[in-house]
C-alpha cells in the first residue's frame, strides 16, 4: 500500500473513531451536543406515617419500577431508629422494609428518589392478565343490577373494550346519573376507579388499578394518583378515572400495579403514605456523569472528568489548542498566508482570550511596536544573540510593567491583561521582526505581522466560540477528528488561495 493510501486509511479510521465515540457519548451516555442543555431532575419524597402500638414494627413500602422514560439517579432512606433493607421480590417488585424492635407513638419514615425524565414514553403493557376467570365482586343484588345497567348503556355507546371503558367512566363521573350516585353511596370507600374495576369485572373484562405520580411541579403531601388499566384482548389500555381520558397523564411515574400493596405496616395503625415532589434543572452533562447506570463506562471512568476541577479547567484550554492549530493548518495549506512562527498565532490568540480581543490587539501592537523601536538600538551595539534576546525579554517585561502601571493610573483596567501575553514569545517575535526589517524591509514585516495577527484573530474567534468550547471539552474524542482532518489536509497537493494571486500573470492568455 502506498503511503498516501495509508494516510487516508489512517485518517478515515480516526474520523470514524472520533465521530463514533462522540455519537456514542451523546446517544448512550447523554452528553449534550450543545452547551447549556439542561435535564429536568425530579426529587420525589414518599413519607410514611403511622402510629406505633409499642410492639415490634415492620413497615414495608413498594418502590417504583424505573425504566422507560425515567432514569434513576439516586435514592435514599431516612428513618431514625429504624433498620432498613431494600429487597426485590420474586415478581420483580422492589420494596423497602423498615424494622424496629419496639416503638411507640407517631412514626415518620422517608424515602427519597431522584430521577430524570426522558422523552420517549411508549409503555403499553402487553402482558396478559394473570387469571382468565375473574371472580365476581361481592356486592348487593341492587348494586349488581345497577352495574349491569351501566354496562349495558356503555355497551350501546361503544365499539370495543377501550371505548366501553371510557363510556363507563363518563357515566360514573356524571353527577346527574342516578346509577352512578347509587353505586357511590353504596360503596362510599371506593374511588371512581375502584368502582369501574368492579363494574368491569362484573362484565368479565379484566381491569386493574395502577398507582403512581403525575410529575407536576410542586405537588406536596398528596396521595398517589390512580390510573385504571383495562385489558382489551391484546394489551392494557390506561385511563385516568377522574376525567375518563385514555392514556397515562403526562409524566406519569408508575409506582405500583394492582395485586401488590403500596404499604404494609405491622405493629402500627393509621398508616398512610404521602408524596411530595419538586424538580430542578441540572446541566445534562453532570446528570450524565452522576447517573449510576452510565458512570461506570470505561470511557468516563478514565476520562479527564475524573480529574480534580482545577486540572479539568487547565484541560479546558489545552483541549482548545488543537482547534487553533487546525485553523493554522488551514491558513497555511489552503490559503497560504505567511505568519511569523508557525504556532505563534495560537499563543497570541490564547492571550487574547484572557484580555478580550480589542484590548489584546492594542496591547500586543503597542508592546511589539515599542519593543521594535527599542530593539533597533540593540542592532547598533555588538552583542551575542542569546544576550540580545535576553535583553529583549527583560525589555518586554519592563514594558509590560510600565503599561500596566500607566493604564492603572489612567483608570483603563482592561490594559492590565497585558501580563497574559507570553513574554518569551513576544521577545522572539520582536527579535525576528527586527531582523526581518533589516533584511527584507518594513513591507515584509507588515505582511508577516498582519498575517500572524489575522490568523490569531481567527483562532481567537474559533476558540471563544461557545459551541466549539463545549465540544472540545466535553468530547475530547474530537481530537481524533481534528487529527484526521489535519492528516487529510497534509495530503493536499492543490493550489493555495494566495498562489492564485501570486501566479495570476501565468493564468492569462490561456
Amino acid at each position, binding site marked *: 500500500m502506498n503511503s498516501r493510501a495509508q494516510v487516508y486509511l489512517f485518517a478515515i479510521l480516526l474520523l470514524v473513531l472520533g465521530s463514533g465515540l462522540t455519537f456514542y457519548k451523546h446517544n448512550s451516555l447523554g452528553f449534550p451536543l450543545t452547551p447549556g442543555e439542561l435535564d429536568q431532575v425530579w426529587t420525589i419524597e414518599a413519607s410514611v406515617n403511622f402510629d406505633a402500638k409499642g410492639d415490634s414494627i415492620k413497615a414495608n413500602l413498594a418502590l417504583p419500577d424505573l425504566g422507560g422514560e425515567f432514569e434513576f439517579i439516586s435514592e435514599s432512606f431516612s428513618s431514625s431508629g429504624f433498620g432498613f433493607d431494600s429487597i426485590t421480590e420474586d415478581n420483580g417488585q422492589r420494596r423497602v422494609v423498615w424494622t424496629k424492635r419496639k416503638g411507640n407513638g407517631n412514626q415518620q419514615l422517608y424515602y427519597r428518589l431522584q430521577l430524570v425524565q426522558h422523552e420517549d414514553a411508549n409503555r403499553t403493557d402487553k402482558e396478559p392478565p394473570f387469571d382468565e376467570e375473574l371472580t365476581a365482586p361481592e356486592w348487593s343484588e341492587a348494586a349488581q343490577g345497577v352495574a349491569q345497567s351501566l354496562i349495558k348503556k356503555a355497551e350501546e355507546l361503544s365499539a370495543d373494550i377501550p371505548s366501553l371503558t371510557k363510556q363507563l367512566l363518563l357515566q360514573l363521573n356524571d353527577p346527574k346519573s342516578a346509577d352512578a350516585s347509587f353505586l357511590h353511596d353504596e360503596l362510599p370507600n371506593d374511588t371512581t376507579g375502584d368502582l369501574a374495576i368492579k363494574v368491569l369485572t362484573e362484565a368479565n373484562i379484566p381491569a386493574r388499578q395502577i398507582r403512581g405520580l403525575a410529575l407536576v411541579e410542586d405537588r406536596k403531601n398528596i396521595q398517589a394518583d390512580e390510573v385504571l388499566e383495562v385489558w382489551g384482548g391484546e394489551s392494557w389500555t390506561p385511563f385516568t378515572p377522574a376525567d375518563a381520558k385514555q392514556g397515562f397523564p403526562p409524566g406519569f411515574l408508575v409506582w405500583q400495579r394492582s395485586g401488590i400493596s403500596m404499604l404494609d405496616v405491622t405493629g402500627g395503625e393509621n398508616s398512610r403514605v404521602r408524596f411530595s415532589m419538586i424538580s430542578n434543572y441540572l446541566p445534562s452533562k453532570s446528570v450524565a456523569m452522576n447517573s449510576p447506570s452510565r458512570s461506570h463506562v470505561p470511557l468516563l471512568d478514565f476520562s479527564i472528568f475524573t480529574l480534580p476541577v482545577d486540572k479539568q479547567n487547565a484541560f479546558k484550554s489545552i483541549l482548545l489548542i488543537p482547534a487553533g492549530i487546525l485553523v493554522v493548518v488551514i491558513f497555511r495549506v489552503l490559503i497560504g498566508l505567511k505568519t511569523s512562527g508557525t504556532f505563534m498565532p495560537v499563543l497570541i490568540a490564547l492571550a487574547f482570550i484572557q484580555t478580550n480581543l480589542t484590548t489584546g490587539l492594542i496591547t500586543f501592537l503597542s508592546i511589539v511596536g515599542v519593543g521594535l523601536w527599542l530593539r533597533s538600538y540593540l542592532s547598533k551595539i555588538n552583542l551575542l544573540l542569546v544576550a540580545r534576546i535576553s535583553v529583549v525579554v527583560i525589555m518586554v517585561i519592563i514594558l509590560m510593567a510600565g503599561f500596566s502601571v500607566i493604564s492603572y493610573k489612567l483608570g483603563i483596567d482592561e490594559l492590565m491583561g497585558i501580563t497574559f501575553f507570553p513574554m518569551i514569545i513576544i521577545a522572539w517575535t520582536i527579535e525576528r521582526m527586527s531582523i526581518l526589517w533589516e533584511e527584507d524591509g518594513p513591507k515584509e514585516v507588515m505582511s508577516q505581522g498582519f498575517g500572524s495577527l489575522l490568523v490569531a484573530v481567527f483562532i481567537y474567534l474559533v476558540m471563544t466560540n461557545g459551541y466549539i468550547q463545549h465540544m472540545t471539552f466535553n468530547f475530547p474524542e474530537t481530537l481524533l477528528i481534528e487529527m484526521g482532518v489535519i492528516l487529510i489536509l497534509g495530503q493536499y*497537493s492543490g493550489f493555495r488561495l494566495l498562489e492564485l*494571486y501570486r*501566479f495570476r500573470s*501565468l493564468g492569462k492568455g490561456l
Partner: protein
Amino acid sequence: MNLFATPSQLRKFGLLAMNRRNLDFISSYNDRSLYPLVDNKLLTKEAALNAGIAVPDMIGSIETPFQIRQLEKIIEGYGQFVIKPARGSAGKGILVITERDQNTFYKPSGAPLSLQDLKRDLSNILSGLYSLGGKPDTALLEALIEFDDSLTKYSFQGVPDIRVIVFKGFPVMAMLRCSTAASDGKANLHQGAVGVGLSISSGKALSAVQDGDLVESHPDTGERFEELAIPYWEEILKLTARCYELTGLGYLGCDVVIDKARGPLILELNARPGLAIQIANQKGLYARLQQVEGLTEAHSIDERVEYAIREFGE
C-alpha cells in the same frame, strides 16, 4: 489583468505549486538525511571539492567566538570577500565586501563598515541568527567572484547567479537572477530582482520578469535581455547535473556563478528551491517533472544533459 487566476487556468499552465512541491517532490525525492550536506555550505564545499566540482575559493571559516578576534589576520591581504552563514537560507546574513581601505570595508552599495561591524555580523552568524531553527552556526569567508563581463551589464551591484532546477539529475528549468536597485543588490525575486528565464537548450533568454511583470530590459543598466546568452552553457548543465550524484537529492536547486577566470562555479545548493523560476520562464514546471518522472532506465550525466537539451529547449 484579473486579480486571481482560476485553478483550472493554473492547472492547464502546468504550474507546480507549493503544496505539490512539498508533498510530491521534496518529501518524495529528497531524503531528510541528505539535507545537512546542502544546508551547510561548508559541507557542500568540501564534498564538491572532493568530487572535483568547481566552487568559489574559500578564505577561511570561523567556528567559535574566539576566532572572531582573528578576523583581521584571516582577511589580511583580501580586498574583496564575502561573509556567509554556513546554514543560512534565502541569502540571509550574506555580507559582500567589494572594497577595502585599511579597516574600513565597503558594501557594493558603497556603505562603509568598520571592522567592529564585521565582527558583530560574525557573532550574529555564530549564534545562529540566520540558521534554520536558530542553531549555532559557522561563518564562511569566501573570495569574491569576479564575474564574467558578459553578465556584468545585467546586474546592479550584486552577482548575477544562475538557478537551475535539477530533477533526478536532469536539468529541467533555469533562470538568471539579476539584482537591481530595487532589490538592494540582492538576487531574490520577491525583493525586486529580475528573473530571466533561460532556454535549457541554448542558455538564451526567453523572458524577463520583475515583480511578476514582463520586462524587456534591466531597469537600472538598461540592457536588453533578448541579447542575453549565458556563456559555458553546456558546461553549466553538466555541472548542475553532477550535483545529483554529489548530493543524492532528487529535487535540487543549483546556484551557479560564472567567474571571469575559472568559468562556472557551484555557489550553493538548495534542497527546497522556490517556485518563482516558473514566473521567470513563463512556463510551468510540473509537466517537465512528470516527463522525467516517467523515465525508468538509468542515464549517465551526458545522456541526461542531452535529453534535457533535446526535450526542454525552446
